[in-house]
């Protein structure tokens, strides 16, 4: 459908006004909201993610695309009140305690939302208890943790350890990422997955939830 392509193109240009106008037009044309969400918004963000990965576009473009996506989402939300917005699942995300660096975490948050996950973003300086409490309350199957400082990385291990103590490991899965974090580190602390970059993080979360 032509209009869905136009919405996707507007999103890729980071044009929130265009996405807003075209999405309301698509709704008036009785295109199923689920189709608008999946084909135009999520489809558009997927292309943004791919271009970002190969350095064809940069962080500012992604941030604008995310804004444009939420402009469209606002219009679609009323249609999903009964059954809720169809999502791939909930992810609780945050930068770990002692660390205030949130650019990478925000990017992963944008990409997960763009891929169709419901993201509960706890911000930065998040304690292990807060991660777990929120995941339990929200019934979220995944906790995503970010750290930029080598000195705060051990907090990720504490979250994994606490989950074990509460017998929640396996039911709540963990994924870690951030500049100093590596695959080996993730394995060492017993995290369920590692996200190399924002696109890879989305793929890893999909794998954790068998959504690939």
């Amino acid at each position: 459908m032509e209009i869905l392509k136009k919405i996707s193109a507007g999103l890729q240009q980071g044009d929130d006004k265009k996405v807003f106008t075209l999405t309301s037009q698509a709704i008036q044309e009785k295109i199923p909201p689920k189709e608008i969400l999946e084909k135009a918004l999520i489809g558009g963000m997927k292309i943004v993610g791919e271009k970002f990965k190969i350095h064809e576009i940069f962080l500012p473009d992604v941030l604008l695309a995310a804004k444009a996506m939420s402009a469209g989402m606002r219009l679609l939300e009323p249609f999903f009140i009964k059954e809720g917005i169809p999502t791939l699942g909930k992810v609780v995300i945050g930068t770990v305690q002692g660390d205030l660096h949130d650019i990478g975490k925000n990017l992963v948050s944008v990409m997960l939302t763009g891929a169709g996950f419901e993201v509960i973003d706890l911000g930065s300086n998040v304690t292990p208890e807060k991660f777990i409490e929120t995941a339990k309350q929200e019934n979220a199957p995944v906790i995503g943790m970010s750290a930029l400082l080598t000195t705060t990385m051990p907090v990720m291990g504490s979250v994994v350890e606490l989950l074990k103590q509460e017998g929640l490991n396996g039911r709540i899965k963990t994924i870690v990422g951030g500049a100093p974090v590596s695959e080996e580190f993730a394995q060492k602390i017993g995290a369920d997955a590692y996200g190399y970059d924002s696109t890879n993080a989305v793929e890893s979360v999909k794998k954790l939830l068998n959504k690939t």
Partner: protein
Amino acid sequence: MENLIQRLKRGKILVSDGGVGTMLMELGLKPGDAPESFNILHPEVVEKIAALYLEAGADIITTNTFGGSPLRLSFYSLEDKTEEINRNAVLSARKAIANRAYISASCGPSGRFLKPHGDIEPEQMYDSFQRQIKVLVASGVDIICVETMTDLREAELAIKAAKTVAVSTPVIATMTFDSTPRGFYTMMGVSIEKAASGLEKAGADVIGSNCGTGIEDMIGTAREFKKQSKLPLIMQPNAGIPTTQGGKPVYPETPEFMAEKAKELISIGVSIVGGCCGTTPEHIRAIREMVEQQNQSGKA
């Protein structure tokens, strides 16, 4: 002391200092604490780092004010202490080095994004840098160093604030680039070509790059800068990409390795060579020795 710009014009190669944040961590900075809080709580540590770099042979000593703008300090709810933090940093540096080196006032990114990508108005960003720089200049710095920038607009606002507060104080401006298959770009997508012309137009006297992935990428960055600008250049690479051993970051590039590679920076025409994260007084000492040899042979 002779003005920095005059000295560079005479063809003198200068050495700037190495990492401050990573040294603070070595000397007791706890994760999650503002590095600038040491200016109030542990001025003796701040003095010590400056003294170590002076002793290693640095001509330029950077103040511990990288995150000293009120916008950045607000991450730690320390914005009300902007004046005290920046003043103390300069006083500590001055106490340690007197007039034996230039004191360069570090002004790092605000940590916030300008509209439309974030929620900060340009005026707000400008005011934040201006408030920090006023204190730095009043406390008696020799150079303003706008550094580690990834957004050109933010860098330009900081340079303009510096030139408005103190028109005759030299301004160094550096940005941080990633090496991509399509060339060097900052996280915000700024090319070296755009950076060089933007920083110069905004009023910077010395331009270049800091932080990043190590000295080898810095050589490529320097080449590109040289093509784009006639201004004196500064390059301050990290000591490579760190790995963690026993919970501590370990930077792979040794003082010898960096000093050897830094020769190439000088042959490209870089005027000031120093270090960033992971570089230590030992790195600066090795670079100093190399530069000494180069300055000698230059005279001969």
